[in-house]
């Protein structure tokens, strides 16, 4: 069976591009704090979500609505409304992280399929089975901290489907628990849907060198002609003692394309592509690439040669935690 490609869409145009490029499934979110890509000019109004889901269904694709931030005390209605409106729009599932919101969805919209977001950081079979038993979760998006053998071990101990990231930006190794953005800006992906919000980012070019400031702090500077990273603290270049280095992680993107056969053997159901903040051009190119790859694996053919590094942060890619050579 062909592995499912789960593709990002930050706009209705990106959703259409994904569908036309062959995405089995598209994930997207509403234009508010309920999803972890709450960026200017991105996301879907209620009407756009209805139209997007209808377009996807007409072409045989599914739509998942990410409601994967953590509800603020006293403002839970915003998150409840998002779950309700995803169901009204005809979404095939919602992607949730907060246990309280999962309980709400299970109680009030029990027929709406529930996936567990990577933001929940569920990294072993016990917690995954707990989410399945308590909230009827049908699929879990695994955090990007696991090796392929660890993913296989999880799949041996659960009937819940697993979905893993295979391409796109990497986060530091505690998804859903990262407060780096909050330290510099007061806003975080967990609560506000924004990591390094654009309103707090400033780029300064001086004699070819590009510096990025976040919340007034310079977090990295690259020389003329050097690839630029995202302006996130986790990709920042810091000086400590006599050393200057990327202390948290290098500014590179994940590309696990070559691991697809191993991920298939490990029992993974779906392959997720990061990048709801990216253009329809990115979406189309990455989907075409990965659709060709999963079909090749399914038919026992060699993987086609990928052309995705140019789309990657820092124009460089890594296998991330899937191959823990750094341990």
């Amino acid at each position, binding site marked *: 069976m062909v592995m499912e490609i789960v593709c990002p869409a930050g706009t209705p*145009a990106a959703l259409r591009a994904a569908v036309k490029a062959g995405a089995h499934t598209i994930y997207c979110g509403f234009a508010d704090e309920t999803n972890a890509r709450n960026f*200017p000019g991105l996301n879907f109004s209620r009407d756009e979500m209805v139209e997007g889901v209808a377009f996807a269904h007409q072409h045989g694709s599914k739509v998942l609505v990410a409601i994967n931030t953590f509800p603020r005390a006293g403002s839970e209605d915003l998150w409840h409304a998002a779950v309700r409106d995803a169901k009204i729009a005809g979404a095939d599932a919602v992607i949730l992280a907060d246990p309280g919101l999962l309980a709400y969805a299970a109680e009030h919209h029990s027929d709406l399929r529930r996936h567990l977001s990577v933001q929940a950081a569920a990294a072993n079979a016990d917690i995954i089975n707990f989410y399945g038993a308590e909230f009827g979760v049908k699929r879990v998006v695994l955090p990007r901290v696991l090796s392929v053998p660890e993913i296989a071990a999880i799949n041996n101990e659960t009937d819940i489907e697993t979905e893993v990231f295979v391409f796109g930006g990497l986060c530091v190794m505690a998804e859903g628990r990262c407060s780096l953005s909050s330290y510099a800006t007061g806003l975080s992906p967990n609560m506000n849907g924004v990591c390094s919000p654009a309103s707090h980012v400033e*780029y300064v070019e001086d004699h070819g060198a590009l510096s990025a400031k976040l919340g007034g702090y310079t977090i990295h500077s690259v020389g003329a002609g050097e690839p630029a990273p995202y302006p996130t603290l986790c990709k920042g270049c810091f000086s400590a003692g006599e050393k200057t280095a990327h202390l948290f992680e290098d500014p590179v993107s994940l590309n696990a394309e070559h691991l697809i056969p191993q991920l298939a053997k490990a029992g993974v159901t779906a392959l997720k592509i990061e990048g709801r903040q990216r*253009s329809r051009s990115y979406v189309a190119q990455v989907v075409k690439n990965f659709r060709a790859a999963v079909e090749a694996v399914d038919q026992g053919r060699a993987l086609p040669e990928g052309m995705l590094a*140019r789309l990657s942060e820092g124009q460089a*890619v890594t296998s991330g935690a899937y191959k823990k050579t750094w341990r």
Partner: protein
Amino acid sequence: MEHDTPQAIPRFPSALARTLRYLPLMPVSVALTRLTQSMAKRHEAMFRRLGAHADATFLLNPTDLPVTLCLEPRSGRPKVTLYRTPPIADARIAGPLAALIGLVHGAYDGDALFFSRDLVIEGDTAAALALRNAVDDAELDMAAEIEAFSGPFARPLHKLIDIAERRTGVALTRHEEDLLW
């Protein structure tokens, strides 16, 4: 880590660019404003998507041309002004003309152009991001927009644009989303 070297983005011929120093800016600005206002009527959602940044001012700076374009969306009543010495604006987006046009037509990815340093963003990053996302969602075809604005000259203009696109490698029309790199 693996690295990949992207293909170069076409640059506007410098000899031709030099002739643009003598371009009469005011009539061209008026024509561009009318064209943009005509587009605004057909793409209202693009201006809605700008949200809180619908009244920001944007400098679009083709780095291979001697002129800079100032775009004022004005909540759906846009105005375009060309400058040789641009004024201060909320945000500046700079890059080769081919990259800026390619972004509009979905031929390039904005983040990828940023990573490769082909695109420079200065000023209000949130406004620049909103504009980029709004334009990306609008699925604009500048050639079609210009043709719609050109009355009886539309067909010969269409042929001219096709020829120019083939010869320059610049995405002068909207294609199905694909990378030119």
